[in-house]
């Protein structure tokens, strides 16, 4: 084949362009640490990366939801613990005052009155701007001074995974006025104390026990919810790790491989430059005297 000067220069140019383009690619991979820097680098892989990234951001959101639900359950637990203590106090006063001799009625009346006030207050517990015992009526106080429930039987629902919801108790009437209306029991106790009606006082002891059971049942439920939330939290964290690993495997470049590739490419580029310098320089004129 007849080889001409422009063939040589064209070949040199073409090779240099190709080598430097590949070198630039390798450089990009090395500096971004990623194998896929644009959709065309690996169309299928790019689609997968988008899917993984979506899943990861959903998992992050679920994690936030779970944290928020855990906070809510913890808050609920604190309030219910207070409620239970108050009911026990009330029961103790009832037992104490159920004796036939009236002793220290005035102090008892004040205390029971206080207990009732505190219970209403606990029933109206607010987490942020939300009344946690008002059901869906979260901006309305659950109980008024007379102990009337103004909420509904709504609940607090939280997304913990795709199409999975967990419901947290928010129905104050179930806690305070389920089988046993604790406010009514307190009112009756007060009437008994004020009218010196020992039978009436004694009748309330059992009701307080029942009210306490009722609260304990809700507390047990919350405890179970909390454990469930922690379980889902751990699962979410594990899933997150798995997906992060899958994403890395698809998207990330292997550093050792990248560096070796880059060095090879650099060498190839330098060799083309070297060859070009040797080929382009001499012509017959260098050798004619």
């Amino acid at each position, binding site marked *: *084949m*007849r*080889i*001409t*000067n*422009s*063939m040589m220069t*064209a*070949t040199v140019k*073409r090779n240099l362009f190709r080598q430097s383009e590949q070198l630039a690619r390798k450089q990009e991979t090395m500096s*971004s640490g*990623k194998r*896929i*820097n*644009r*959709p*065309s*680098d*690996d*169309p*299928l892989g*790019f*689609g997968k*990366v*988008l*899917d993984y*990234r*979506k899943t990861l*951001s*959903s998992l992050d*959101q*679920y994690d*936030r*939801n779970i944290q*928020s*639900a855990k906070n809510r359950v913890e808050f609920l637990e604190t309030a219910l613990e207070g409620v239970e203590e108050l009911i026990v106090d009330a029961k103790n006063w009832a037992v104490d005052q159920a004796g036939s001799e009236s002793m220290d009625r005035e102090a008892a009346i004040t205390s029971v009155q206080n207990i009732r006030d505190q219970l209403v207050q606990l029933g109206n517990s607010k987490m*942020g*701007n*939300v009344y946690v015992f*008002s*059901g*869906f*009526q*979260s*901006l309305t106080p659950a109980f008024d001074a007379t102990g009337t429930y103004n909420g*509904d039987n*709504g609940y*607090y*629902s*939280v*997304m913990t995974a*795709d*199409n999975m*919801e967990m419901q947290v108790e*928010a129905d104050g009437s179930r806690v305070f006025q389920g089988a046993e209306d604790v406010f009514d029991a307190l009112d009756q106790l007060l009437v008994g104390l004020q009218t010196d009606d020992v039978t009436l006082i004694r009748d309330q002891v059992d009701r307080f026990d029942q009210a306490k059971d009722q609260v304990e049942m809700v507390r047990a439920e919350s405890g179970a919810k909390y454990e469930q939330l922690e379980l889902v939290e751990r699962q979410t964290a594990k899933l997150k790790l798995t997906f992060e690993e899958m994403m890395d495997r698809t*998207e990330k470049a292997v550093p050792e491989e990248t560096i070796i590739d880059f060095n090879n490419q650099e060498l190839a580029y330098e060799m083309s430059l070297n060859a070009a310098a040797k080929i382009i320089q001499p*012509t*017959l*004129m260098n050798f*004619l005297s």
Partner: protein
Amino acid sequence: MPDIYGILNVATRSLLTQQKAIDVTGQNIANVNTPGYSRQRVVMEPSTPINFEPGQMGTGVKAAEIQRIYDSFIGGQISGENSKLGQWEATESGLSRIELIFNESSGAGLEEVMSQFWASWQDLANNPSGYPERTALLTRGQTLARTINTMSANLQQIQLDYDQSIVGTVDEINGISRQIVDLNEKISQVEIAGQNSNDYRDQRDQLLKELSKLIDINTYENDQGQVTVMTANGNPLVQSPYAYELSTVTSADGLQDVVWMDRGGTGIDITGSIGGGELKGWLDVRDGFAQDYLDRLDELASTIVTEVNAIHQSGFGMTIDATTGDPVTGQPFFVGTTAATMEVDAAIAGDVNRIAAAATAASVPGDNTNAIAMANLQGVLTMNSASTTFDSYYSALASGVGSDVSNASANAEYENAMVSHLENYRESVSGVSLDEEMVNLVKFQHAYQAAAKLITTVDDMLNTVLNMV
């Protein structure tokens, strides 16, 4: 009658012929870097001999013609591949620009914005009456709409840019056609006189090559050396002595269609039948790829609007409707039907408490059922006749763009290699080699020197004869 003066004639002819050869060598050296130049050579042959005793005697050399070294089949082949190269290079450059719109390998694209939008509904579900959550949701909704708007606007901008390229390319084609007609004239004039029109032919071949990169062409040459150039549907661009114009007309969608103008000035639409060249590449990007992506983006936007609104309108907000006295319901979240027009409903933008988190009027404000239903929409098979989620539809679109780009790059690279290969072959036949020219130069110079020596010898001989007297 060959005599001593006959020898002088031989020497003179030799000098003149070698000088021509050196001249042509000079021309070759001068054009070593001229694109499309074919090397030339002087064809030397012995001049007419004279009958003499004891036999025929030569009368020296003459330059019969100046020839260009050329393979007549390679031109057509290069044109064909060049059309494909032009097409794929144009397609690749267009798609690479489009790819930027869909490139979210570092995040911050539509995929992420969509994820954030759905996540905001979950945040709202965690605190259905929260003003900050509602405001955040509004912002995310606006960001989603704006991101889709921007993508659509960018795609349309690319369509408009390539529309301009198409108009420019058509002008370029017309310019080249006219030049080819001029060269046709010159070539036939030179060749009717019986000479080779080497340089004009090189120029014309170069123009045909440039033309073939812009649009697919077929060419043939008549017996006067004039070339006829035909393009899409066999419509001629050049049919000496006429050059036919291409032109553009604005079509119904506001973009330019390519028309071929006949001698009477009537335009014939050839947009769909252009088969190669940059023109085909620009048209493919504008009417094919970009339009397809736009359609799919529109489909995504309109489905998001419909689906989100269906759920939102069934829910209840916190604002109390002045006429009914109940919480507002039936409120759309988004308005618009295309990627370009999608936006958050103005009423919601003005009052975030109109966002419907609750499923029933009675359960306002603590109920988050509707917000959760909305968040679940992310995983619902809403697209492609209920077979794909929003996210998968979009990631399929983005990875589709990626494979279109990588396909176009592969084709462009292949055609590039083909054209280089053919160019190399052409160069191998027609290209100027400086080494070769230097050898020729030395060769012709020596011949010239020898002829001069002949004259000196004849001079000596004549002196000898004169001194005899």
